[in-house]
């Protein structure tokens, strides 16, 4: 087994909400190995984006606060690093791309100058060299006529092209970890397929790890090696991709997979997960999913559950998960 590139241990993040501290991320632990793709799936409010921001130390304090845990990148404790060192890591070792590239690109500068800026931040080279490299990056991410597009402003490009520019910028310093936060959610299906393939190809080419954050189970199934399922701030299940899809153990994962319509099979009726995701101020003391769980026991809502191994590489946050089959 290879050494871990990123290790997140017992991460807790809280946000001030109406004068109270709400625990938005609770006890999140996972690791990413070199060249591996970890999928982080969850619905809105599951804390998946907050987790990724905490890894980059981008949680605004206030209103947010990292209240516990650690993030180790290459053996360095991210939370203990001075801000200057952290800036080198951001963009240099860990890069990030977002759902809507238009808001993360500066509208006042050309795409080329923004990429070369990013290059010069982390590498000592002349302006001219950086600009040439920027064009080269644009070519690499499949932007047609990159010399011309380098001189274009973000608003002059389509959504797919902008996302390519974002990827070029993120990868310009050859990071060892790319965090992609819903990278294709704003894009059309055919463009989404292009971007996902591009990310996959570049990952193979550069030998980097990928933390892919999404709500789309299809994207997870096709692009990830391992999957962590998040719900209301906790990881409920974590396993390799085929285990998650073929033999999920947690009631939430099971329900979620039955609730989404699938392309290859037609069902008369979709599985209903009743109720809705609880707000952070109405979370039970115990299992966060207990209010919607069809197998909920008397003590589920009151006793906290721990993420425990059920087999090698397969962790589940539900102590009753082994007995569910017989019950059903």
């Amino acid at each position: 087994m290879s050494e871990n590139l990123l290790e997140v241990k017992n991460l807790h993040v809280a946000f001030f909400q109406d004068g109270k501290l709400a625990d938005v991320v609770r006890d999140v632990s996972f690791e990413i190995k070199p060249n591996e793709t970890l999928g982080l799936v969850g619905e809105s409010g599951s804390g998946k984006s907050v987790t990724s921001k905490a890894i980059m130390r981008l949680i605004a304090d206030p209103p947010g606060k990292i209240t516990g845990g650690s993030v180790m990148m290459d053996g360095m404790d991210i939370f203990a690093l001075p801000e200057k060192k952290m800036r080198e890591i951001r963009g240099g070792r860990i890069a990030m791309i977002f759902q809507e590239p238009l808001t993360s690109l500066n509208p006042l500068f050309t795409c080329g100058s923004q990429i070369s800026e990013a290059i010069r931040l982390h590498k000592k080279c002349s302006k001219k060299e950086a600009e040439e490299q920027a064009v080269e990056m644009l070519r690499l991410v499949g932007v047609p006529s990159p010399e011309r597009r380098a001189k274009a402003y973000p608003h002059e490009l389509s959504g797919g092209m902008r996302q390519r520019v974002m990827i070029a910028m993120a990868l310009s310093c050859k990071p060892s970890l790319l965090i992609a936060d819903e990278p294709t959610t704003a894009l059309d299906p055919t463009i989404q397929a292009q971007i996902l393939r591009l990310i996959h190809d570049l990952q193979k080419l550069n030998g980097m790890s990928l933390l892919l954050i999404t709500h789309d189970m299809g994207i997870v199934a096709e692009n990830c090696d391992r999957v962590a399922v998040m719900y209301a701030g906790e990881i409920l299940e974590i396993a390799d991709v085929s285990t998650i899809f073929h033999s999920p153990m947690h009631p939430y994962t099971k329900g979620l997979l039955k609730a989404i319509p699938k392309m290859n099979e037609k069902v008369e009726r979709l599985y209903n997960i009743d109720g809705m995701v609880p707000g952070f101020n109405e979370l039970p003391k115990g299992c966060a999913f207990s209010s919607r769980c069809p197998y909920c026991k008397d003590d589920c809502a009151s006793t906290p559950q721990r993420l425990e191994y059920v087999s090698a590489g397969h962790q589940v946050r539900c102590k009753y998960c082994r007995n569910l089959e017989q019950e059903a």
Partner: protein
Amino acid sequence: MEKILEVKHLKKYFPVKKGLFRRTVAHVRAVDDVSFEIKGGETFGLVGESGCGKTTVGKLILQLHRADSGKIVYCGEDLCAMSGKQLQKKRSEVQIIFQDPYGSLNPRMRVEQILSEGIIKHRLIPKEQIPARVAELLRLVGLHEGDAKKYPHEFSGGQRQRIAVARALSFNPKLIVCDEPVSALDVSVQAQILNLLVDLQKELGISYLFIAHGMAVVQHISHRVGVMYLGKMVEIAPTEVLFKEHAHPYTHALLSSVPVTDPDKIPEREVLEGEIPNPINPPAGCRFHPRCRYACEKCSCEVPQLREIEPGHMVACHYPNVFREKGKEKIAASEEEKG
């Protein structure tokens, strides 16, 4: 089954205005000669990518935009030819559910007001029966009677979408246009709304025009599906046929781009190259030809008409099924050329 809605050669160009005097400099060809029909009790899915005009088709049917030309025949009457009062009455029978449950309900009205507004306006039932009807509507969509006194902001996204469904039902509509009704909802809540729509259809015999970009959702809920590209209908077929035996290369690419939810059965993917062209200046001939890897000369100059290749299966392509028969050899040939 009888037809409840027939759309014939529908056209809508939006003018693009520029300059001080707002002169029209170009047109966005949002919907360009689109025809299809919806039968009673049926769900017709309309899919396509952004700019294909599917949302405009929905708004034209609701008469939120007036069509430039073409007919929208609802229960034997052409909505496009109607005007004023006549239309106001008629179009309440065609209702809509929007994508965004936060934006589609008036934040200043209580649920009971939202649900009774149409009933009062069109005097559908006597006044004293309205509270009972509101309660019945709420029960139908899985909400509580007590919710009638609340305001929309007191509900979650999924519950608001239920209110939107109840509002649409308050008119006893024969047809509901669902414009991306589950796209803004969480995955676990999507199934609730989809099941609700299916149940209501079985119970009340409503037809749906289901507009969406998520192929899996459309496949799940639709009886027949139409695929649009840049303002044109490129293929219409019963759902099973469309998803297994589609004949248009665009449909093929669109279906192929959808990720499957089984990590062990990832199909060989045909990733479409290039971007969606601007609908202001769509390509000549077949609008898909610049991105179609099977296109030949005829495709770039002659507009393919929507024609029936087998009963119920219509395609607008000069060479339907070309990607099945010639796909492999053509790719091989083109690679030889390059090499």
